[in-house]
């Protein structure tokens, strides 16, 4: 079957999708967006976390056909999504998605989101496999709550497993991203 939906602000189309296929498989294998990771395929690990119409979900548990006409944001579009929250931006272009790198060149169109930058600054990335899912989950938390308590952070990330870090640096990174977001929101508030 054919499935058409919006990914990172741009219309994507996939053909010959098997009816039992997951959104995760379509993103990775048919749309060339391997940022969402495939690990447990049963919703236990959170490595494939994406936003579906704004809500964090495990892409491995969403049937591709269920996404028809809906809106998906993956880690590849996270930076753009974050900047769009502050300003009124455009969708991520295909070229931007494919050019995405953790350390963008000076002329690259995609700067890092506050959460991505904080993960680098706090040393919250080791093997990196869980990182995309954690970034998407942490970004959703900070979008709704820029002053999360430690309890809020733990709960928001409770669906994401990391086997390297022991989580402490990840918690540091989320606190850092939240503090920076809160500060910039406060500054914006003053400017207005």
């Amino acid at each position, binding site marked *: 079957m054919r499935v058409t939906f919006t990914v990172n602000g741009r219309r994507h189309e996939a053909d010959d999708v098997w009816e039992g296929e997951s959104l995760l498989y379509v993103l990775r294998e048919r749309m060339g967006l391997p940022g969402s990771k495939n690990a447990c395929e049963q919703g236990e690990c959170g490595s494939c976390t994406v936003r579906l119409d704004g809500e964090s979900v495990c892409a491995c548990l969403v*049937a591709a056909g269920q996404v028809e006409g809906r809106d998906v944001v993956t880690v590849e579009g996270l930076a753009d999504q974050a900047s769009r929250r502050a300003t009124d931006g455009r969708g991520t272009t295909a070229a931007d998605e494919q050019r995405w790198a953790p350390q963008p060149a000076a002329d690259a169109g995609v700067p890092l989101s506050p959460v991505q930058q904080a993960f680098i600054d706090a040393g919250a990335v080791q093997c990196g496999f869980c990182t995309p899912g954690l970034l998407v989950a942490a970004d959703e938390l900070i979008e709704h709550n820029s002053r999360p308590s430690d309890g809020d952070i733990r709960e928001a990330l409770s669906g994401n497993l990391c086997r390297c870090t022991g989580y402490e640096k990840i918690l540091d990174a989320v606190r850092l991203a939240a503090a920076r977001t809160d500060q910039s929101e406060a500054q914006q508030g003053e400017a207005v």
Partner: protein
Amino acid sequence: MEFLRPASWEEALAAKAEHPTAVPIAGGTDVMVEINFDQRRPEQLLDLNRITELHEWEVGEEQVMLGASVPYTRIIENLRTELPGLALAGHTVGSPQIRNRGSVGGNLGAASPAGDSHPPLLTAGAEVEAESVRGSRRIPVEDFFTGVKRNALAEDELIKRIHIDKASGPQQFSKVGTRNAMVIAVCGFSVALHPERRIVKAAVGSAAPTPFRATAAEDFLTAALDEAGLWESGGAIPLSVARQFAELCSASCNPIDDVRGSAAYRRHAVGVMARRTLSWVWDGYRSTGGNGARNDEGGSRCA
């Protein structure tokens, strides 16, 4: 495989009548696991995501009409006053990602003995509204679970709504697992006070082939509270009564040994949860002067 995407409830019922083996899929948190792991290859998947009324709920005078696909996140955010037991149980389901997709309708459809929503439905009082092209019927939740992963639905029926009595007193839920998130219950327990009728309902999950109400324990406690006039006096429940209630709850279990825990452990844990949740709801009852529902801020307490 065929992917059916009905745009309306009527279309969904027609599709289910035409394809009785079609597997309904809403949040996908159970069905997709089975498909990903090659455990299930249904001829048709029946996607219910486009049917808006399944995502809606309505708070009535005495009951909440909960659409089958309303995700746990919405229940926790919006219905914790009316359905405190279900909200507490919902908060222990999976993770935020799972709670954004998983629903009570799906939990009932899967009918796992470990379904977290089942004990609070049993203690609150609930009816499952099942519908087919032949018509609609309401199944008391006590009659809904017929075996391990089996329920009372006919093959052409779909779950439309769950009608749940609004809490008239404190309700509690407790669950044992290896960590606070992402666990299938080793066992679960729910208790609800119904002060207006002077009765207590208690239900157990994951300690028998189906979730069930511990009726012997309920009857004992209801009689003991009545005899001592504790509903009126608001006095403390004697230790011996709480202990007997816990023992009766344990004795009503019919658990198995499996990877999550042994039968003996489950029996023991159910007793511990029974005693603790009883003390929580009774404290709640006493602190509200004997009436009104109350629930805990910040989710369920650790058992």
